[in-house]
């Protein structure tokens, strides 16, 4: 399906972008769509900071010796790369941008349930982000994003407290977003929008919100305990003060494992929408895909100690957490099979969002299957804390989550901006990202099995690791170009792009039944839903019967 050309509508319809002008109308807005754009700008800023750190890391590892930066600097680089990417990019990415923009529209609501709390959550994110920036500019932190004790509480002489508090504050932004989504999805659905008619994007965000609300407070408490031990010498984690260092790991991973699902579930939601649209089909096994999101959210809370198989936990605990980790792999597999089955007898289009969805499928499959290696006790004791782990979680969190995010940005960009992006460039960028990503991270699986430990600034005693590291560094520059391109042509399209029609993809879903870009309150009249999700049969029917229209 090619993008429809301009429909000849008047150029300047009133919409959420042009209704008010001025800085105040943005900084004090309670419009979920404007807040989504505020988030988009802020997380893009942090993405490029985190990406810059990543490139420096890769450049340092191009040669075995620690020659580009000193060991201390390297340690700060990978720490802040992780903290910025996890807490200030990936966790807010899809929920705070696409979720904020789309959740109300997809369920036929005017806004989120608590518009002011939504704005508050952006301000909390910004306060946390500024604290993090200040921390980085005044010396940084070198604990690893994992803050392991007693290193973080008693040995590191960097700005641990400031980084911890920055993440603590940003955590509340995440909690409030989750809370807002849960209430909105329960209370604000349009008439006729039953639970089984919800787009699966909504189910994915509902599951994500549960994790945000239940999990984030635990990491907040943990960081407060780290600060308390570091500042006040309360004995919690440091054995010299009577504490238990493994307690920290239990508390930290109780949040930080489910946090991976905060990153990947929304991405799965995006990919579900894209695959349905570009196969022109109802999603295969709607209820299984919906329930698998909830199953992932619930089981995700029961597997945290698989990060600790060699940390000194008992053999029996390791057995339990290994078997539970396999349990959480089943719903992820079910999703992959359902997406694949959706293509069967479809009418498949190859527009840019779909290419990103294919990329997601490929990278997520590899990331998920290598997770089986790490959940396997006998293999984990060799590959734990090596580059195998780095490769695995980048396949999930960058390959999966970021591919989904970019796919979603392309899919909904016409709705968000009212403009069409250049399709050729977008397809090219998808290809470059896919190739660059595999070139960067696949060699790291091999490095990991060879035994290269993570977080090594210097490997001059192990020159045998160099060639694979060179591949990886080369790939990272390709990947960098792939990520830069969309930013350039999205910005370009805002000024020079063709105006987007209301529904350029002929997609199902209420967000496409309003104008592009939407008005401040999304719909001129409250929509009444009388159809199932993904009713592509009716949309594509050659002689449409009475297709219900929202407005």
């Amino acid at each position, binding site marked *: 399906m090619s993008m429809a050309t301009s429909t000849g509508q008047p150029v300047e319809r009133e919409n959420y972008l042009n209704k008010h002008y001025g800085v105040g109308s943005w900084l004090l807005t309670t419009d979920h769509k404007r807040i989504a754009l505020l988030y988009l700008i802020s997380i893009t800023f942090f993405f490029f900071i985190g990406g810059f750190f990543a490139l420096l890391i890769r450049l340092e590892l191009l040669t075995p010796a620690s020659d580009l930066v000193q060991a201390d600097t390297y340690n700060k680089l990978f720490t802040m790369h992780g903290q910025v990417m996890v807490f200030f990019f990936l966790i807010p990415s899809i929920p705070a941008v696409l979720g904020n923009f789309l959740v109300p529209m997809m369920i036929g609501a005017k806004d989120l349930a608590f518009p002011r709390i939504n704005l508050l959550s952006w301000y909390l994110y910004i306060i946390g982000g500024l604290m993090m920036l200040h921390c980085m500019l005044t010396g940084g932190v070198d604990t690893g994003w994992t803050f392991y004790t007693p290193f973080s509480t008693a040995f590191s002489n960097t700005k641990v407290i400031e980084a911890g508090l920055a993440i603590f504050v940003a955590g509340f932004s995440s909690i409030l977003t989750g809370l807002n989504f849960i209430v909105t999805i329960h209370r604000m659905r349009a008439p006729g929008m039953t639970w089984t008619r919800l787009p699966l994007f909504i189910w994915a965000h509902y599951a994500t919100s549960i994790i945000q609300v239940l999990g984030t407070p635990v990491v907040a408490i943990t960081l407060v305990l780290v600060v308390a031990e570091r500042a006040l010498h309360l004995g919690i984690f440091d054995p010299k003060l009577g504490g238990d260092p493994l307690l920290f790991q239990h508390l930290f991973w109780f949040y930080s494992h489910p946090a991976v699902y905060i990153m990947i579930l929304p991405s799965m939601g995006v990919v579900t929408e894209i695959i349905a649209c570009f196969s022109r089909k109802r999603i295969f096994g709607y209820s299984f895909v919906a329930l698998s999101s909830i199953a992932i959210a619930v089981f995700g809370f029961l597997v945290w100690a698989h990060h600790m198989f060699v940390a000194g936990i008992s053999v029996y605990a390791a057995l339990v957490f290994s078997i539970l980790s396999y349990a959480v792999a089943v719903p992820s597999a079910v999703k992959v099979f359902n997406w694949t089955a959706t293509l069967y007898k*479809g009418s498949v289009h190859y527009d840019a969002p779909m290419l990103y969805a294919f990329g997601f499928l490929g990278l997520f499959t590899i990331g998920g299957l290598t997770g089986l290696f790490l959940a396997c006790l006998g293999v984990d004791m060799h590959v*734990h804390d090596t580059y195998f782990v780095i490769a695995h979680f980048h396949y999930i969190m960058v390959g999966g989550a970021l591919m989904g995010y970019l796919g979603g940005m392309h899919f909904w960009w016409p709705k968000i901006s009212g403009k069409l992006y250049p399709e050729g460039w977008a397809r090219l960028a998808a290809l470059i990202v896919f190739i660059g990503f595999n070139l960067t991270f696949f060699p790291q699986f091999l490095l990991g099995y060879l*035994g290269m430990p993570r977080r090594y600034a210097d490997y001059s005693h192990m020159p045998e690791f160099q060639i694979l590291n060179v591949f990886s560094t080369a790939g990272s520059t390709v990947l960098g170009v792939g990520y830069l391109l969309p930013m350039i042509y999205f910005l370009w399209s805002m000024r020079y792009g063709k105006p987007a029609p209301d529904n350029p993809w002929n997609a199902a879903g209420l967000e496409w039944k309003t104008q592009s870009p939407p008005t401040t309150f999304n719909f001129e009249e409250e929509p009444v839903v009388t159809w199932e999700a993904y009713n592509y049969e009716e949309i594509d029917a050659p002689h449409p019967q009475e297709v219900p229209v929202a407005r």
Partner: protein
Amino acid sequence: MFDNFPLWPQRASSTAGNVDALFIFLVIVSGLMTLLIFTAVVYFAARFRHRKGVLAEQIEGSVPLELTWSIIPLGVFMVIFAWGAVVYFHSRTPPRDATEVYVVGKQWMWKLEHAEGQREINELHVPVGRDVKLIMTSQDVIHSFFVPAFRMKQDVVPGRYTVAWFRATKSGTYHLFCSQYCGTQHSGMIGSIIVMEPAQYEAWMSGGTTGPLSATGEKIFSELGCVTCHRMDSQGRGPSLQGVFGKPVALEDGRTVTADENYIRECILDPGARRVKGFQPIMPTFQGLVTDEQVNALVAYVKALSPPGTAGTATKTAAAAATPGQGNQVQ
């Protein structure tokens, strides 16, 4: 150039083959699953690509199909789990007659001390074919003892002992890495495991030493005055340590613990924590008064008071491999 481009790590321990076999199995299983999914995606996407006038055929889904692709993967996962558990269990259960080496990690070096008294830094000499048990602790932050050629890794945690073991199968020099990030020189906390033929090893062992570790421990035991209360004849104010190691100990609060390395260590550093039934809380703590190496020597001495072969510590390598072993020891 390609001499320097290995794709498979060296294999030099009795565990390495087991881990590799499991790994290869996983590569095959996940390779087949990847192939299945990729083929299906590519085939469907090509076969059912958009054609003018051809509409997609709507399919609701299929419960039998959903159950099939839930249950079959779950079954495969359980096989992987069980195999992985067996390999892990084996590598976490040190044979009872293993040679013991005490390891102390600190920023950024490894200190190793053989039970026979040899001390080494960042190097460990071991003979081919002998079971070696590592009793490890850290002086500061968490480290991790990782020998890729042995497929062996265990975090080294301050404030307690963790245990690992291996049996080297091929002489040579192998990397020892710290794999848990531990600060500035984390990537410099590396060393070598030097596996020698038994004859060479004996020659190396006969080099200068201060005597067995347990003898050092005995000396510290009397220097610190431990001996005044912990008398051999059970008449002291503290419990006699004769034959205690590896046996159950009844505690004042009614519980019973096994007197393993971690318990002996705790009794020295925090005597009140788990006090032996029938004794007064009069022992002072030695926290800060003894170094980790001295605690290791004391533990070795207490162990030497319970010679192998006495009840409870009988050598049953085969049984040990299949049973969880003793309390905290197998962590």
